[in-house]
């Protein structure tokens, strides 16, 4: 089953779960109904920082329809969530309020309306504290510690070569400081969970979530029961993008605790405002970069300091700190690096995973700086990138080398080839300023520095020749079920309509960790391939017995077993499967895929971190209306090295959607705070890109096979965000002659900068 003659993998297929989605039949969590179901609604803090002196639930309990009011002390377990150390986040705040919107009580009632009425009258007695709202305030000498251990959430260094020596050898140094703002995930389905208790003492939690095994662990710990007593079932999930992790553990825990207390099913479904103020955001960042280079454009050294605003709780900040650290130098061959990355606490909604995981922020800063270097040297922006581009065998920022699947140069060449055929941009006129920007990026695939990377999958073939595939990673809309079904179909020769890929049920597969890091296709797909390959052995062995030939002559395809030497000699797979069952051949396999361990020095971050990287190059052509600041995107090319395309349609969808996500970050979206409160927690004031803002993206792929992925595939869910954001910023700089150093570069920012530009009216 090597790369040759693939029949299903690599073909353009419809989503396997598509019909129920276009007909409205798919049940998302909020669509579920269980007999006796009650509803939970949280009481939330309206101030960003305060000590809690008391919480009075009497009025809420007296409200008609209210069944139960939970405070932190009612959680049987530790009342803590948090995916990583320092595990600093309470499910319900008991002593301190650390952000406006933090939950301190949950009201459970007969109806959502009654729960909401109850939540409004939970009284909290607060002693206000001066909020700490910026990175500078957080790090200021003598600043009030937001957590007992201080205001630094996590800090790490990357040291490669001798950065002082590198700067001494350089002909020039280009410096700049770049900032990005908090971004909201903006999935259209707000978070929701429903906990259903059963008579055997277990509780089943249906959840719109990203990492079902995280939920299981947190819910069990906070219930004070073993994980085996909790079952988490992934419901159809309306997008996640990193956002349905911590918050899903929070509301999953609350619903489960309430469900056990009441012995009734309990639903918690967030409203949009709660989804924005009460679940994690993308980290805001400030990144200072100095790049030392030779006159010919060779980059010799970079010194970089990253500061991330992580908000009130750690969430995934430790991992984001490291991911940003490892990626900020970009996909280049640079002998000397010194990078520091620090995340700090502030009294704002916590930041955590958000599509790209620090890489978009890092790439915007790095690629803006590379563009400035190119300008200083009078070099073409693609040429300077090509000159420094990582190739197979080159040591990247962590000193890791790869024998293959380093496709950056191919992506640059593909963009260059396309660019060479384009007519030149029109000249600027009375109204329009034209510009072109490019950016390169890399994005580590797999958990890498974030710990062990294992995924479980099961494949079972029934006597009728149909297959059921289960994998421990979630489909949140990205198409994971389709990819897994394709892989099983390819291996087993069972046609796609006969393959069912189900959502995650923690009862059915090995703990597979979180659905993150663009790893589902790569590591999850590999697990499915392994499981399917084992089941295939039974089918092939059975067919060989039926044909009375050697197994090597048996081919499985299109729901038949056939002879490789005579395609007319064929037996329906259902007959083979039935015979295999009655002969006692195993038709189900539980497989386990483990990516190679990351092995690196934790002081310098030198070593092997990720099993593979996705590489990409983006190009934007834009024009800017001088009089209004309005930007029109004329062209967007996005080329990624994905190792192997499994489903071209799914790939295009990831590139197109991820690019618009990055464009939103770069041009439109910003979570706005006033006095520590989010003031645009709705879709009227938060500018989510609409159909009118869509990009004319041309999705392109190069395939430099990744030996650690199924059929050579590498993930692509996150990488386009960084490429689009950075290339857009460079296009604006090219058009306007102004280097914008903070995202988003909104129409208003552009207009103000154009008005302030010397020589303009």
């Amino acid at each position, binding site marked *: 089953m090597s790369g040759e003659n693939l029949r299903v993998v690599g073909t*353009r297929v419809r989503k396997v779960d598509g019909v129920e989605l*276009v007909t409205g039949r798919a049940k998302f969590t909020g669509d579920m109904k269980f007999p006796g179901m009650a509803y939970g609604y949280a009481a939330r803090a309206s101030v960003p920082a305060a000590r809690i002196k008391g919480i009075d639930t009497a009025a809420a309990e007296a409200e008609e329809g209210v069944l139960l009011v939970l405070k932190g002390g009612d959680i049987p377990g530790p009342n803590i969530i948090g995916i990583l150390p320092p595990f600093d986040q309470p499910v319900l705040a008991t002593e301190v309020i650390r952000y406006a919107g933090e939950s301190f009580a949950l009201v459970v009632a007969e109806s959502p309306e009654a729960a909401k009425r109850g939540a409004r009258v939970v009284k909290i007695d607060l002693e206000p504290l001066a909020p700490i709202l910026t990175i500078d305030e957080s790090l200021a000498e003598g600043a009030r510690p937001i957590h007992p251990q201080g205001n630094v959430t996590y800090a790490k260094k990357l040291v490669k070569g001798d950065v002082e020596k590198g700067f001494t050898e350089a002909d020039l140094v280009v410096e700049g400081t770049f900032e990005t703002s908090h971004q909201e995930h903006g999935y259209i389905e*707000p978070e929701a969970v429903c906990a259903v208790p059963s008579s055997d003492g277990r509780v089943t939690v249906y959840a719109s979530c990203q990492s079902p095994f995280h939920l299981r662990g947190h819910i069990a710990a906070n219930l004070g029961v073993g994980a085996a007593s909790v079952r988490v079932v992934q419901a159809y999930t309306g997008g996640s993008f990193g956002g349905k992790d911590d918050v899903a553990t929070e509301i999953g825990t609350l619903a489960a605790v309430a469900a056990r207390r009441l012995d009734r099913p309990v639903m918690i479904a967030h409203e949009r405002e709660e989804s924005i103020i009460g679940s994690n955001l993308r980290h805001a960042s400030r990144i200072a970069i100095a790049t030392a280079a030779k006159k010919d454009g060779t980059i010799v050294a970079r010194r970089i300091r990253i500061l991330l605003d992580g908000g009130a709780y750690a969430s995934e900040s430790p991992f984001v700190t490291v991911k940003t650290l490892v990626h900020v130098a970009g996909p280049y061959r640079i002998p000397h690096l010194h990078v520091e990355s620090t995340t700090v606490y502030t009294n704002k909604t916590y930041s955590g995973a958000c599509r790209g995981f620090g890489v978009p922020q890092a790439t915007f800063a790095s690629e803006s700086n590379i563009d400035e270097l190119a300008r200083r040297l009078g070099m073409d922006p693609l040429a300077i990138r090509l000159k420094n581009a990582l190739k197979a065998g080159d040591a990247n920022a962590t000193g890791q080398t790869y024998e293959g699947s380093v496709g950056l140069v191919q992506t640059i060449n593909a963009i260059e080839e396309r660019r060479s055929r384009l007519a030149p941009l029109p000249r600027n006129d009375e109204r329009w300023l034209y510009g072109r920007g490019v950016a390169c990026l890399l994005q580590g695939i797999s958990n890498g520095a974030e710990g062990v990377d294992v995924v479980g999958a099961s494949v079972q073939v029934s006597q009728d020749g149909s297959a059921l595939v289960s994998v421990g990673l979630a489909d949140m809309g990205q198409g994971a079920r389709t990819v897994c079904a394709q892989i099983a179909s390819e291996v087993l020769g069972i046609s796609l309509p006969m393959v069912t890929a189900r959502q995650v049920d923690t009862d059915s597969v090995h703990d597979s960790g979180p659905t993150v890091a663009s790893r589902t296709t790569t590591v999850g797909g590999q697990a499915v391939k392994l499981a399917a390959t084992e089941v295939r052995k039974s089918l092939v062995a059975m067919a060989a017995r039926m044909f009375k030939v050697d197994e090597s002559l048996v081919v499985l395809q299109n729901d038949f077993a056939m002879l490789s030497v005579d395609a007319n000699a064929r037996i329906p797979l259902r007959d083979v499967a039935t015979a295999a069952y009655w002969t006692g051949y195993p038709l189900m396999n539980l497989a386990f895929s483990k990516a190679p361990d990351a092995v690196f020095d934790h002081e310098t971050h030198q070593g092997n971190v990720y099993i593979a990287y996705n590489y990409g190059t983006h190009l934007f052509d834009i024009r800017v209306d001088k009089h209004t600041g309005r930007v029109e995107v004329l062209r967007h090319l996005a080329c990624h090295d994905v190792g192997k395309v499994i489903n071209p349609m799914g790939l295009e969808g990831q590139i197109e959607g991820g690019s618009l996500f990055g464009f939103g970050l770069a041009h439109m979206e910003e979570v706005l705070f006033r006095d520590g409160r989010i003031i645009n927690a709705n879709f009227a004031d938060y500018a989510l890109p609409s159909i009118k803002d869509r990009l004319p993206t041309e999705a392109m792929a190069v395939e430099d096979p990744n030996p650690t992925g199924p059929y050579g595939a590498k993930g692509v869910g996150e990488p386009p965000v960084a490429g689009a954001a950075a290339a857009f910023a460079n296009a604006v700089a090219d058009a306007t002659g102004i280097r914008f150093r903070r995202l988003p570069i909104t129409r208003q920012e552009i207009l103000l900068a154009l008005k302030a530009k010397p020589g303009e009216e």
Partner: protein
Amino acid sequence: MLIEFICNGKSTAVEARADMRVLDLLRDSLGLTGTKEGCGRGECGACTILLDDEPVNACILYAAKLQGRRVETIEGVAGKDGSLHPLQEAFLEEGAVQCGYCTPGMIMSAKALLAKNPRPDVAAIEEGLSGNFCRCTGYAKIVKAVLRASGEEMRGGAAPGEEMRGGAAPGEEMRGGAAPGVTT
């Protein structure tokens, strides 16, 4: 109050408070959960239904407004035999669905558009769907799906009107090597 209306072609009578949201009436009283809530403020379009063929947000409409009217939800779009509507086929064929949460509302808006304008150009599609947010797809495939459903075979080519934005020749779009080995 008793609210009587036509729902997906069937005479329907429901006892409901006059100030109940249509969204809740559909979802809770009638079990029609295909209509989704995304914002509750008429901003995202996930709850789009057709009221006498006009797209409206069910989250900001009072139940009393349904009296004597004709309502169509996503559950009424496919044929009674389960056959998909051309829009539903086109959304699947073009990959215009990722998570699918916005899809019912998107399809209802598109259906209203095609009823009025069977051959919409890209600008008309943009206008018709501008009240429906999608966070997953980037929208390009949604535009292609609506064009496909209206009989345009725009697959792989720039949509009409796109030339001005992109300057790319029609048909040039995917030539960059989107996917070696693609078969349709």
